[in-house]
């Protein structure tokens, strides 16, 4: 007979307890000001020239905000996509494959964006 505590120690079927739930809320809170920043950055740079864009992103405050957004959004994206997949993809193999692809996608978005922002910031 498993006691309630033993069951809690097992931390549920994912063995991670509420880690993803908490991480999704944390990134959601961080994403609020950063999303406002991104949307403002998009609408104020419609049709901006190459040099305007470069100097905008090379600004340290802008670069750090963009890096924070990409990191936080990629984590949030990965958890969110995984949740959708787990609800709608029922075959075990297809489900795992979809989660692997979603993780690669989120990581790819993050790495490519971070590389680009760092490259622009360092001016090379």
């Amino acid at each position, binding site marked *: 007979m498993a006691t309630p505590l033993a069951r809690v120690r097992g931390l549920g079927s994912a063995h991670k307890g509420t880690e993803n739930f908490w991480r999704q809320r944390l990134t959601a809170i961080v994403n609020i000001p950063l999303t406002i920043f991104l*949307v403002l950055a*998009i609408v104020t740079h419609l049709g901006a020239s190459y040099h305007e864009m470069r100097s905008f992103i090379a600004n340290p405050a802008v670069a750090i905000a963009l890096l924070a957004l990409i990191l936080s959004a990629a984590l949030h994206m990965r958890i*969110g996509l995984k949740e*959708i997949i787990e609800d709608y993809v029922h075959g075990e193999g297809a489900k795992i494959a979809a989660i692997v692809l979603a993780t690669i996608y989120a990581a790819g*978005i993050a790495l490519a964006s971070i590389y680009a922002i760092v490259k622009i910031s360092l001016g090379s």
Partner: protein
Amino acid sequence: MSHGRSQAERPLSPHLQIYRPMLTMMMSIAHRISGAANAVGFLLLTWWLVAIASGPEAYATVSQFFGSIAGRTLLFLFSWALIHHMLGGIRHLIWDTGYGLDKTSIEVFAWATIIGSIALTVLLWFAGYWLMGAF
């Protein structure tokens, strides 16, 4: 999970198609759709950043695309999805505290998310075009 047990004939709980569509249910689905749309939208952002990092020629291609009607429409929809998901997310954060779960509040939150996201997006794009000197 043990296979023997899951293969037993069990009554299934009614699924989506059984229920009359309701606003709050639609908003739950809209939150997922806007979230998935944002995942695709970030590809646009990544493309844009990589192009700026790559040089003037790559940026010219991206810039031409985002200047076209299709590109502007995609950007508009991306910004709407971002704002919709953000307002919907704030609604969820409020619910996490245990407040706003009564019938009146959930209806108000639903309408606030729909109307607020459309109004904010349109307003921001007006401001953007105004800054470009379109008016």
